[in-house]
């Protein structure tokens, strides 16, 4: 340093370095000066996420139900098939094997929100329910016993005007699926005079069909058909008497997944760290290493593979993975839990996923807003033949932290 510079610096000491004599000649020289404290690595550990992803929270709370055996299910509001036996046979003292076919529109595609699978809709679309329960309550308002013979429930497609074809097309997608409504070992169901009877029957095939049709946005109706008769020797039916079959559908989350699993995506728009865009390149220059470490305790009867994509800005529901500016991180695996052959969880499984981010991957997180897309592949356990039964409270506990190392000080 020249003597004159020294002098200037000294004279301006009292005014704390306002002088040009103490100022560097360039930005890089200024940065070298501030880095004179010595090179160091500063490591910052920050929380990224700490969440419990329970299946129940992924569903519309209005349709979630818990079965008596603590399984999680989705219910459809009860609907009734009502047949006015008195209207068709007023003042008849003896009824014997009068065939009646009752058609009642139950569910149409306009009522899709009645069967809302929430965030797991894509999963539901790709799997079959192993356990779907029809809780029936058959009511007889007449003064004579009613016997339902060969009474079945089925799913039929409505025409474009919303009308049910007669006879109904029970199975527009293949082999007709009809669920018999009868007592065990019999083809009939007896309901005493002025009484009702309740019971639950399995109807997984019927429900799978119903779900598929609804998700395909086909106009759909739940219909019943059969013969109503009586075994009473005498009796009287009034015009207002009805036989009604109230049906409540519960689809238990008991899936069998394909070997390749099922895939669904979900977007989330998050605020980034809000780092000024001019700051980002300099920060990236100093980036030594950035890891996102995620610990997962998987208490779901499934395993999960994740792909994550980040893209700057708010993309809404757009495909983040297809965005040209997206950063895609693939291959994050959450180990499958221990599951018994019936698909029930035996024990949870802990796993840790470490993702190391490089410069441009970090930059998306530093800006104001980014959209994160998650592509989830849900995998079934081989021990259960890919079947999984979701009990109430089933969840994955997730904790993510970021470890960011910055090179600071000299020698940048």
């Amino acid at each position, binding site marked *: 340093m020249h003597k004159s510079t020294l002098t200037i610096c000294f004279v301006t000491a009292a005014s704390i370095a306002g002088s040009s004599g*103490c100022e560097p000649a360039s*930005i890089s020289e200024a940065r070298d000066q501030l880095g*004179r404290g010595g090179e160091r690595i500063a490591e910052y550990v920050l929380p990224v996420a700490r969440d419990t992803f329970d299946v129940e929270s992924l569903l519309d709370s209005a349709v979630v139900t818990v079965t008596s055996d603590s399984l999680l299910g989705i219910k459809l509001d009860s609907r009734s098939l009502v047949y006015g036996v008195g209207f068709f046979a007023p003042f008849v003292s003896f009824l014997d094997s009068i065939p009646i076919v009752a058609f009642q529109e139950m569910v149409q595609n306009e009522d899709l929100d009645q069967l809302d699978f929430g965030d797991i809709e894509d999963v539901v679309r790709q799997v079959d329910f192993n356990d779907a329960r029809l809780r029936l309550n058959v009511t007889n308002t007449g003064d004579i016993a009613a016997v339902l013979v060969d009474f079945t429930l089925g799913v039929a497609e409505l025409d474009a005007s919303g009308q049910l074809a007669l006879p109904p097309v029970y199975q527009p997608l293949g082999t007709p699926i009809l669920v018999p409504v009868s007592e065990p070992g019999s083809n009939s169901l007896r309901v005493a005079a002025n009484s009702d009877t309740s019971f639950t029957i399995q109807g997984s095939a019927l429900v799978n069909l119903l779900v598929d049709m609804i998700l395909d946005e086909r106009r759909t109706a739940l219909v019943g058909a059969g013969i109503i008769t009586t075994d009473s020797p005498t009796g009287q039916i009034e015009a207002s008497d009805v036989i009604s079959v109230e049906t409540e559908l519960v689809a238990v989350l008991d899936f069998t997944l394909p070997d390749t699993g099922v895939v669904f995506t979900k977007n989330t728009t998050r*605020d980034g760290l809000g780092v000024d865009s001019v*700051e980002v390149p300099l920060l990236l220059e100093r980036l030594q290493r950035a890891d996102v470490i995620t610990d997962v305790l998987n208490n779901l009867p499934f395993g999960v593979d994740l792909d994550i994509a980040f893209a700057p800005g708010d993309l809404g529901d757009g495909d983040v993975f297809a965005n040209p500016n997206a950063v895609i991180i693939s291959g994050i695996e959450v180990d499958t839990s221990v599951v018994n052959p019936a698909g029930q969880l035996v024990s949870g499984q802990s796993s840790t996923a470490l993702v190391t981010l490089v410069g441009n991957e970090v930059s998306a997180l530093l800006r104001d807003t980014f959209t994160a897309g998650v592509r989830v592949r849900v995998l079934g356990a081989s021990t259960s033949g890919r079947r999984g039964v979701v009990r109430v409270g089933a969840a994955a506990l997730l904790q993510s932290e970021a470890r960011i190392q910055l090179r600071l000080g000299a020698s940048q």
Partner: protein
Amino acid sequence: MKRRIVVGLVAAVLAASGLRAQTVPEGSQAAAVEPGYRRTPVFRIDPFNNLRIPHWGFVFSVGGTAANNAVNLKDFGALIFLSDEDSLRWVDGLDALGLVPQGSGLDGNGEGQAGVYVGGPIGRRLHLGLSLMGRSYGALSLDDDAVVLLRDGNASREEFTLGDSNGEGLASGEAGIHGLYRLGPLGSVDGVHIILGAGARYIRPVLYGSAHSVISNGGFVRVNGDSISASIEIETYQTPGLLDGDVKLNQGGGIIGDFLARAEWPTSGFALEAMLANVGAVSVAGVERRSASVSLETTDLNEVGDVLDTLELALQDTTNITITLPRIARFAASAWANRILQLDLIATFPFGSEFDLPATVDVWSSWRFIPTVPIRAGLVFGGHQGVGFSAGLGVETRNFFFGVAGRSLGGLFSNATGASARLDLGVFF
């Protein structure tokens, strides 16, 4: 090493004194310098500084000292340069934090003064002086526990605190009256002269501001991979005009005292001195008390930003406070063994103030190749910066005196982490 130098200099001073007692004849150059000029000027507050002048007159003084333990003048220059170039970035701040010594935190303080003095001798023994001064004091301390989070990260520790971080500053106007009374020579014509001094200054606060943690031990900030939590509350006091420059002069006041005792052996060329300054307290009226608090428990980093965005210092009330000025105790030994050289050893200690500057030991050598033109050079030890270098020049005549001095602390010139300067101009009748 420092201790060795100090001890050596003390020994030199004492040896020189003894040598003079035996060898310097009366009427020599060593005895001829006006005794009032033997009191070497210092950079920090010295209410008796101008009482040394031998005649009635005016003295205009301006000076100040400021230092910190981390950033030197070139660092300041770099920060200013980057700011001027609109290129000051976060990482530059993180780089600069690397300058803060580990375990020490960031400490800085300073004081400045400017004013006029009028006074002179009344008879042979009494000196009286009146002064009007403006003074400022400031201190900043950022606890290492607060710095370390950004400087080193939180990988190896999770909890941080503001600790003893605080800042305080005062600008005041003052009017003072000080007197010295000389006794002696005692015993013989070459005997000791005893000088006793006392004075009072009326302080009128002009601007005041301070900030500190309300929560004992500075609260806490805990950051780990699970969550971020914090409990911090900061309280500030400030006079209303602090931020908008609307200075008000009716903001309290107080009288503080200064005391001096000095023993001189002029013909032997030796003096010892003890001084207490700024003894007392000052009230500041109409101070706005503001506070801001952060209470946070979150796993979402964005929530931290939201909380910080809404953070503001909310006005709580207006109150009167009492502050203690930076009291100092100064002990000095001076020796002028021969016709040219004078050595001074000056130790300054703080005691009990919000603005304490750390203890320092100044070693001055004054060279009078021309008796009326002292050239001064010295070293200073202690403070925030360890070692500093001092230099000065004076012109000391019957009709006027002029003195200029500067000090580079913690390094030379642009590498200094502190600086001091002083300028005096006296005109005598």
